[in-house]
């Protein structure tokens, strides 16, 4: 009986962990090209989730809503880049940290007022009637999370490795100035990375909303976990986020069962601080050499 409980906790936790991994993946996309991340990414997830919900309220069929929501995510990502990141990059300052926090706050307030402060259910055609696998209950909805995460990450990785535009990513992340000299517009590539990051965030919102409901505070808990995953895995490590995400999700779940549900945040947070202290480049990342 006990082992069933543990398996249940680990599996549900791991599936949630995939959502963290997806959002962390979005961080990697922007960090790799611009050394920046959107500190307001949680709000981006939330606003695009609300937008998707509105599409459904307007009667848009589910399969059409998905690309609509994803597109909206792209637009938001581009907006964040333009308003919060580009100036700081040009000035080679770190003002983007504050600016992305501020844009996130703006998004939060707008969402509160446009859609209200309450949590709302997110209708989905995917069923939430539990299936039983060896005594562990998993819903098709949870499975769809895994499917969605892997599909999207896989597609983007293919894009990065197989297309010219994708390789431009790597170039700009290695040396912005050199890439520009080679004719790759660093600004456009950074824009692209933010657009993709927004796409990924919107997907995370669509996947997770049916399970957790949509509300202004929905992503504030998610985001810190996603930060943990991104940093522990390394901000330039691709699939490492999946492994760490699953690990963290399962760890959280077990913590909440054995120690107390209020403590579930703790492992992720402690892990983040430790990772930052011991290996700022992450378990899978590479240390870079500074030229002086």
């Amino acid at each position, binding site marked *: 009986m006990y082992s069933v409980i543990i398996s249940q906790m680990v599996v549900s936790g791991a599936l949630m962990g995939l959502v963290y991994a997806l959002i962390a993946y979005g961080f990697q996309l922007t960090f790799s090209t611009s050394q*920046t*991340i959107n*500190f307001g990414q949680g709000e981006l997830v939330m606003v695009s989730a609300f937008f998707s919900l509105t599409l459904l309220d307007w009667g848009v069929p589910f399969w059409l809503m998905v690309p609509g929501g994803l597109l909206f995510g792209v637009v938001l990502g581009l907006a964040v880049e333009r*308003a919060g990141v*580009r*100036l700081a990059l*040009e000035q080679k300052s*770190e*003002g983007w*940290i*504050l*600016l992305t*926090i*501020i*844009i996130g*706050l*703006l998004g*939060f*307030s*707008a969402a*509160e*007022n446009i859609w209200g402060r309450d949590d709302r259910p997110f209708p989905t055609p995917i069923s939430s009637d539990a299936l039983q696998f060896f005594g562990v209950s998993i819903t098709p909805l949870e499975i769809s999370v895994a499917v969605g995460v892997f599909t999207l990450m896989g597609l983007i990785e293919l894009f990065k490795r197989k297309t010219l535009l994708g390789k431009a990513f790597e170039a700009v992340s290695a040396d912005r100035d050199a890439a520009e000299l080679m004719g790759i517009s660093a600004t456009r590539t950074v824009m692209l990375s933010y657009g993709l990051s927004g796409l990924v965030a919107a997907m995370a919102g669509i996947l997770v909303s049916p399970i957790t409901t949509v509300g202004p505070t929905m992503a*504030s808990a998610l985001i*810190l976990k996603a*930060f*943990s995953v991104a*940093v522990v895995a390394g901000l330039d490590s691709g699939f490492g986020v999946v492994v760490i995400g699953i690990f963290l999700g399962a760890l959280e779940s077990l913590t909440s069962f054995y120690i*107390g549900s*209020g*403590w579930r*945040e*703790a492992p*992720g*947070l*402690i892990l*983040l*601080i*430790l990772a*930052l*202290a*011991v290996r*700022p480049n992450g378990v899978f990342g590479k240390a870079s*050499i*500074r*030229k*002086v």
Partner: protein
Amino acid sequence: MLKRLLLIRGAEIIALTLLAAIPLTVSNSYVLGLLTLLAIYGILLIGLDVTVGYLGQVNLAQAAFLGLGAYAAGLSVSLLGFGMLGALTVSMLVGLIFGGILAFPALRLEGPQFALATLSFSALSTTVLNEWEGLTGGAQGLHVSRPIFWGHTVTAQGFYWLCLILLALVWLAMRNLLSSQWGRAFEALRDSPIATDAMGVGTYRHKVAGFAMGSALGGLAGGLYAFNFQYLQPQSFVYELMVILLLGVVLGGRKSLWGAFFGASLVALLPNLLSNRLLFEVISTIGLLAALVAGVRGLMKKTTRPFQAIAPILALGLLAVGGMFVKNTEDWRKAIFALMLFSVVVGLPEGLMGFAARFLTRLFHIDPPALPPATVLDRVLPAKTPDGGPLLKLQDLKRHFGGVKAVDGISITVHSGQIHGLIGPNGSGKSTAVNVISGLYAPSAGKMLLHGKALPRGMFHVARTGVSRTFQNLQLFSELSALDNVMVAMKGVYRTPLPLVLMGLARGEEKRAQADALALLALVRLKHLSRVSAKDLTYGDQRFLEIARALARKPELLILDEPAAGLALPDVNKLVEIIWNIHNRGITIILIEHHMDVVSELCNVVTVLDGGRVIAEGAAEEVKRDPRVIEAYLGTASEAAAAEPCSFQTNP
């Protein structure tokens, strides 16, 4: 001088008196509550400004220190029976200790990683406060009783005066701290952590100290907060509060006590500002007009980028117009903060106080305080007679970066009193070797001995052994003035312990440091530019400034890494003179250069590197004719034979 004193100190005294007098005339307890909150936030934001303004990092943990200090104070009263002073001391210590604990991992980090580390600490504290119900009461909250102060019960008014007094003390102490070497060191490490270590100032220790002090103030503010509200719960100290605090510091003005104070008034009074729609409209319209004026001027004069000029106008426009149409400005509180903060970060990064200070100094023509006369150079850099024995020995030194063998077994001996040249084509390992010597990189193999003893690890420790350097890519403290750049590196002057610095007893050594720094600036002929920001100097002057700064270390061994790079001929000549001067004082110099004339003129002995190895060593003239050297620079010997052997010059 007197004018400055009157205006600045006068303003402080007037403000303090006004604030203290308000409860005597106004008896509304609500107003008193707001003013008390203002004083508390003032202390909190001054603490936050240390990390955000001076250290230049986004610190997201200050709200957590507020919370931890608050709970510590409350619990010390209920569990330990402390009085007011005891409880406040506890809250300050708690802030200090937790700040110190967080500092160790967090301060190895920069930028986003630092922000993330502080953010997780904050979330972790909230979780612990929430879950440790046995101690803190968890989500149900903790009732705090206001303790007695030296045997008397404290009324609301009395408590307000206590907060005000503490604010004044904190103000004074921080003013003393930030105008001392501490403040300079904070700014230096923000601008160039590498140079800060290389100049023996110690990036890490100052960061930790700065952060810990800021968190101690956060803890103190927490204690006062607890006794003000007399009821605590973990949810009060979350991210939302932190963003508001950042708003206060940035809007008020970073690196400014007045800025922190103004920011605190904003934070304390903002809820009231928002519920009064007319006031809100007036202020946002004023802001919009200011942004329009500034933006248009900036665009016309081309001093600001288009985005910097237009974005604040759009944001404030949205604020002013939006305010007229929304049903309830309270509901949009966070958006209003966000738009205000956005306009300030983009359009007015120095904050309102920074702007006001500039404006007021122009209006009142306040001269900066007078500088003392420069010390005689011989007292700053006394001439020594070197014995000519081996000073620095490199034995089979190696430094590899993965597969790249940048330095692949070099053995060099530098004798004291000499100017030892280090030349070689690009990529030969000169800078890497020097970086290893000065401690930026650890060696992969081999030994480095200074006076026969192994060199310590790390730039800071190496600097302390009497080795100083300049950098191939300038590492100046760009926001500091030329004078401050040199002052921060000055060795042997700053002896006042921290508590006495806080009390303002470091003025004497400040003056001494200024005088000494002026002497060094005079040596490099930059004395007339001492107040200019390093970033505003010409390239040539910046190079000379780095040398003056390196000399402030009163080094035994000075390493100059391509000091002539990019200099025009007149400056090159000036450089040669300066290096002679330094040499004549007995300082040993390692000179990396591509300018062959400079090398020939100055160097007693030259080592040539190629591919990470020594290929030749000897007097400059010999080395120039060495076929291996020629081959390394120009290609095969036969091609070079056609060229004039004595007068080639390589372009750097």
